[in-house]
């Protein structure tokens, strides 16, 4: 179960992340990211629990003293909440890897007139 205040927080994070205004960094967990704010830190992660044979999405919140104040993990069977967290995780993934910008950049280069592709520098630069 996710409280309404946490749901509101997650929805606002999705909006902020999609607008490229959230500075997510990789965290130490599996498929995990963290966002450091002045008031605390939020982590989001996705994993497969082999013992339960279930996919999970998780979000945790830490205060500035390093105490974990919220630890939410939602199994795939809880569709509504799982979808919400998955939407956040996908937005973060997209934002961190800049997938859209990279694909757009590649398309722009391909659409340009002329040759594409750089020479790959060789390590063997000796004259003999």
């Amino acid at each position, binding site marked *: 179960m996710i409280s309404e205040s946490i749901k509101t927080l997650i929805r606002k994070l999705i909006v902020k992340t999609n607008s490229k205004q959230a500075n997510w960094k990789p965290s*130490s*967990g599996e498929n995990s990211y963290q966002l450091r704010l002045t008031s605390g830190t939020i982590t989001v992660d996705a*994993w497969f629990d*082999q*013992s339960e044979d279930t996919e999970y999405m998780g979000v945790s919140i*830490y205060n500035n*003293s390093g*105490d974990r104040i919220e630890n939410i993990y939602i199994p795939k069977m809880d569709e509504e909440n799982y979808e919400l967290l998955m939407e956040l995780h996908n937005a973060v993934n997209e934002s961190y890897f800049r997938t859209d910008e990279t694909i757009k950049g590649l398309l722009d280069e391909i659409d340009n007139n002329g040759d594409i592709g750089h020479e790959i520098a060789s390590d063997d630069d000796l004259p003999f």
Partner: protein
Amino acid sequence: MSKEQKLLVITFIVLSAVSSVIFFFAKSDSDSSLSFISVWGSFASLFAFVFLYLQLKSQQALTREIDQKIIDTKKLLVKLFSIADISKGPKIAEQAQTFLRVKKYESALLRLKDLKEILIYIKHYNDKESVLDESVYSDHITNVTIDLSNINDIIIGKKNKINASKINGNLEEVSTFISDFELKIKDHDF
């Protein structure tokens, strides 16, 4: 004897000498030595009270000085013990990195817990002396807590993977942070 006491004694001696001289050279037949001694005795008692008062004052000042020295010594001892505890931090971080490399997660977890204790100790020290940047401290304690949580999830089988290079990076940074802090409290009179 304090300066005031010395001055008092000298004044007493001088006044006694002057009054004795005046009495013996200027006395009339009706004046007797006994009355002079009686009056001189009263003044001597007065001087004795003033001398005692000055003695008590100087004793109090000495007690305050001793108390302050005790406080300063205690502070120094606490500082030395603090430095000794805090200086273990980088070594503990290094051990945690080694355990992670060989996938000994339980041992890495214990080391991270020790590291968290040292960070909390640093915070407690900082509450008294205000040496470090709170925001930087907050980053490190949060990272250690997150890493602890993720390693624990591996141990209990909840998750299969951790980002070990991220944890190693965090450990390097916290090690540097602790070393910097240790130098600050060693080099300055905190």
